């Protein structure tokens, strides 16, 4: 990871660094040796990560997609589409609602194509269109008082919760889902330290330390 960007407001390199860091951390998490043998994702050299183009990020709502590829066809068997939400950035964006000045033509077209849905809905729709073997993972960066750690929610059934939130505010919409798994990545050890299945409107940012030490997709 490159050193932090000094220039205030120059968030693009910072954002890229965050994605890079998240990618390496989460890869490490996915390679995490599970002592209880509960890990559902059996990772091999067929594991693949594809970064989305700027246009795809808007159209599909994904920043990158992990996939377990089938040999020899390379068809994806299980996919995890990842969207990064930088909470501090979001706060800044909400305070200063003007869009970035540098916006390419193709990005404008992509935005126009997707203007009727939020980024969250687009990711959920994308995963739902593929099927239950495609999971959506929202990663949260920059939580106040805990900026080093990454929080996330993972589900292949987010669509069941769409429209059930009574709060329109961005990530709260995601975090008030009826049922999902939570992933908590520790920034210093860069390992998955706890995950848990959550029920009914638990706020992802209020996870406590009692969660179990294994990763188990149970939807």
């Amino acid at each position, binding site marked *: 990871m490159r050193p932090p960007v000094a220039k205030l407001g120059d968030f693009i390199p910072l954002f890229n660094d965050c994605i890079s860091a998240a990618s390496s951390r989460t890869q490490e998490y996915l390679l995490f040796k599970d002592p209880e043998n509960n890990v559902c994702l059996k990772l091999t050299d067929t594991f693949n990560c*594809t970064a*989305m*183009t700027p*246009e*795809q990020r808007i*159209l*599909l709502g*994904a920043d990158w*997609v992990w996939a377990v590829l089938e040999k020899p066809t*390379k*068809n*994806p068997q299980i996919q995890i589409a990842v969207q990064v939400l930088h909470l501090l950035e979001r706060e800044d964006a909400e305070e200063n609602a003007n869009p970035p*000045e*540098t*916006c*390419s*033509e*193709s*990005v*404008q*077209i*992509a*935005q*126009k194509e997707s203007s009727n849905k939020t980024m969250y809905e687009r990711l959920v729709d*994308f995963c739902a*269109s*593929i*099927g239950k073997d*495609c999971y959506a993972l929202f990663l949260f960066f920059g939580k106040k008082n805990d900026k080093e750690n990454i929080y996330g929610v993972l589900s292949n059934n987010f669509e069941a919760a769409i429209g059930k939130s009574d709060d329109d505010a961005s990530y709260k919409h995601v975090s008030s889902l009826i049922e999902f798994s939570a992933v908590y990545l520790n920034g210093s050890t860069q390992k998955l330290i706890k995950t848990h299945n959550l029920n009914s409107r638990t706020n992802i940012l209020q996870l406590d330390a009692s969660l179990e030490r294994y990763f188990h997709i149970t939807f």
Partner: protein
Amino acid sequence: FDLFLQMAATQDVKGKGEGGDQNFDYMFKLLIIGNSSVGKTSFLFRYADDAFTSAFVSTVGIDFKVKTVYKNDKRIKLQIWDTAGQERYRTITTAYYRGAMGFILMYDITNEESFGAVQDWSTQIKTYSWDNAQVVLAGNKCDMEEERVVSVDSGRLLAEQLGFEFFETSAKDNINVKQTFERLVDLICDKMSESLDTDPAVTTGAPTAKLTDSAPPLQQPGCNC
């Protein structure tokens, strides 16, 4: 053809920015479809960026590039949508068929299965697109003559049966890439002009100049390699 003309007519692309070139006369939405790994993305990269890499990166869902071409002093902006060929992405890719004015249906001349799937892809176009959408059949990877399993004649015959134009192409060696897109643009322009001739009333709000006044001669469909 009313809708066809409306779609092709100058569109307002909202927004601002250094890359926001809104000076164009027509906007054509094109799709590249076909089985996985036939070379759709490479084909688009060759056309839009004049670049090629042999590394295979499977397209996730859908992506697109924009390229402006000129025809009889008219600026035509091409929105070229690159689709994932795998079945699992079919729901999301077919959602983009609606509104497409032209398709490049691609197979790989070294892959019999991809050629056998052409009929199914054609059916997909008929199901999810509209009757006026123009289609060019492209047999890609014609630089790999030694591994060829689909003959030029087979490709040409199938194209005739389906009512499509036909080219053999190579994104790698840059053979017939530009010609394929240019032919597709010509076909769309022909349709637009037919529409204008049939019912001038539908031109309201659309440019009146015919785009087919000096149509280029047909290209050689075979692969010159």
